[in-house]
């Protein structure tokens, strides 16, 4: 017996056996993990159909790139996180469904994201700042954080001076992210007829180049044909690049800051999960974790060591 006590192999084997017993008996332990409740609002206005993004190496529209990124986000979010979906056009956000579990309801959630389409849009206007404010309101009501995906293309353009509309909520109550979708170069936007067929791109005369709903800019009197009453914006055809579109990062950063959200561009940070987890309220949940494999892994290591030690020691024993 004494010799046995000196035998390292015996002890190793005994330890491996004990650990395996442990692996069978160990109960699950409860750990706390952070999950997130998100409301995702996707801009489905015309400018989002501009094809200046890529998905899996192929050219894709901004909307398709946004959908691909969101699908990945749904797959990446920790289970028990919830995600609701809505769309934005005109000046408001429209909730499609309240947040649902990203794991249990993964299949319908994924299909719903795939089915987002610019044809759902109900108006041609795209007042991004107002849409964002409205989305923040809905998110606050749902007690969720907001992910607002847009290219930031305001149509009609903001009034001269670029003053943002007033935000009436409390900045920072809803956290989250404004995600800029689109390339940095200005490119023409596709144009569609009433039946949804693509018929070329927008020209400079097809879109309002200047917002005429507010007071004219202070230097308007220098414009040709200016008349304070009959032509407060001058009489020339407005020149501009509003028919071309790129992701308006500066504008997005400004409106995001106004409501207390962070801002990221899809082309520079395609991994939405880390951007969102660092800018959203975590909700701690308890999850049961199976730690049995840990004990089993130790048992396995001992057992392998038992057999491999002689090989490593390069001692060639005489087998029985």
């Amino acid at each position: 017996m004494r010799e046995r006590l000196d035998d390292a192999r015996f002890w190793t084997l005994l330890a491996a056996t004990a650990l395996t017993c442990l692996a069978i008996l160990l109960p699950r332990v409860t750990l706390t993990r952070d999950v997130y409740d998100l409301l995702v609002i996707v801009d489905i206005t015309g400018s989002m159909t501009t094809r200046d993004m890529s998905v899996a190496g192929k050219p894709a529209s901004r909307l398709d790139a946004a959908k691909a990124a969101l699908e990945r986000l749904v797959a990446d979010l920790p289970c028990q996180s919830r995600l609701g979906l809505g769309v934005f056009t005109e000046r408001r956000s429209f909730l499609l469904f309240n947040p649902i579990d990203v794991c249990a309801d993964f299949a319908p959630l994924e299909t719903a994201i795939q089915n987002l389409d610019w044809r759902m849009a109900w108006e041609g206007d795209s007042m991004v700042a107002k849409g964002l404010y409205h989305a923040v309101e809905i998110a606050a009501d749902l007690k969720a954080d907001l992910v607002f995906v847009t290219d930031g293309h305001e149509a009609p353009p903001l009034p001269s001076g670029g003053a943002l509309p007033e935000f009436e909520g409390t900045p920072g109550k809803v956290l989250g992210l404004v995600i800029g979708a689109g390339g940095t170069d200005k490119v023409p936007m596709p144009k569609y007829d009433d039946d949804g067929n693509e018929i070329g791109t927008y020209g400079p005369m097809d879109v309002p180049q200047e917002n005429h709903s507010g007071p004219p800019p202070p230097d308007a009197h220098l414009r040709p044909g200016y008349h304070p009453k009959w032509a407060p914006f001058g009489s020339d055809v407005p020149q501009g690049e509003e028919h071309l579109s790129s992701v308006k990062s500066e504008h997005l950063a400004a409106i995001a800051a106004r409501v207390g959200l962070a801002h990221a561009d899809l082309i520079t940070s395609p991994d939405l999960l880390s951007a969102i987890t660092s800018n959203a309220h975590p909700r701690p949940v308890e999850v049961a974790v199976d730690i049995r494999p840990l004990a089993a892994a130790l048992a396995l290591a001992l057992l392998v060591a038992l057999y491999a030690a002689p090989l490593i020691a390069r001692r060639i024993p005489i087998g029985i």
Partner: protein
Amino acid sequence: MNFGLSTPMVLLLLPLALLPLLRSAQVPQNFPSIEDIETDPVSVAVDWVLRLAGALAITALILGIGGLHGLGRTIEKTGEGAHIVLLIDRSSSMDNTFAGRAPEGGEESKSAAARRLLKDFILRRQHDLVGVAAFSTSPMHVLPMTEHKEAVLAAVDAMDRPGLAFTNVGRGLALALDMQEADTSPAARVVVLVSDGAAVIDRKVQDALRTAFARRPINLYWLFLRTEGTPGISSVPAPGEEDTPQAMPERHLDRFFKSLGISYRAFEAENPEAVGHAIAEISKLERSPITYTERIPHEDLKGRAFAVALVGLLILLAAKLAEVRLVPATEGA
């Protein structure tokens, strides 16, 4: 049963199971010469049992660590139910009460009442596959046909948010039919249209709808949340009044549905109770046999893998305990 591993990478460790076949766990001992010892079958058998026990223990541990499980399956069962598309009007008039004003105090808006009763309906119908579409100025795909009740409830929950301006019934119906089209099972198909008004359906859209309805049988229910004092489905134009779709959209939409030659019923509800009755009636009518799938969750087999490993280890341990140290004869003398 099919098996799966949560972490298939552990299979890379499997060659480790060959170790016991190459090396023994017993203590090597010096023996002057084994040439005189004959190989006897019992010793050979014991040797192999020990090697295999080691290999078995290592393999079982690796599979257990990798999260061995029996794959979840879906089995088909037969029950009563239907494949339903809820087509929900999200126009802003749905935000008003049945009396036609903004809700105040304990009053319930039309959409809130419909939401509460529809949720109840969905919860009570066990085997239905439900899809959700919304329409207002444009049709909106909300949720695909799904058996996930929670998702459908979340979509119905969203219906009493402030809506948009118009009521474009025609395109909404076209979307609902599209969703039914995508599903190829032989189950009974139902479209439940929940709206508080009607609108003129464009000729072109009317023709498209006629063809789509003709293609396959669909049961259509129109839950019309009528505001008190407004024209209803069965209102007849007073003498001298125009009988056109523009003047009386509800009456003409109802006529259009009747002319489709499908199983169609309209429920006109002027208060939450009437909505409840209508929904109960739909629930009673839609009881055709349906095949639905039931998921059998995957079964954790880690514990069993570890138990198998334990058996192998106990055999090795027994061999260890039976080990005898050979003592050289000279020292013993």
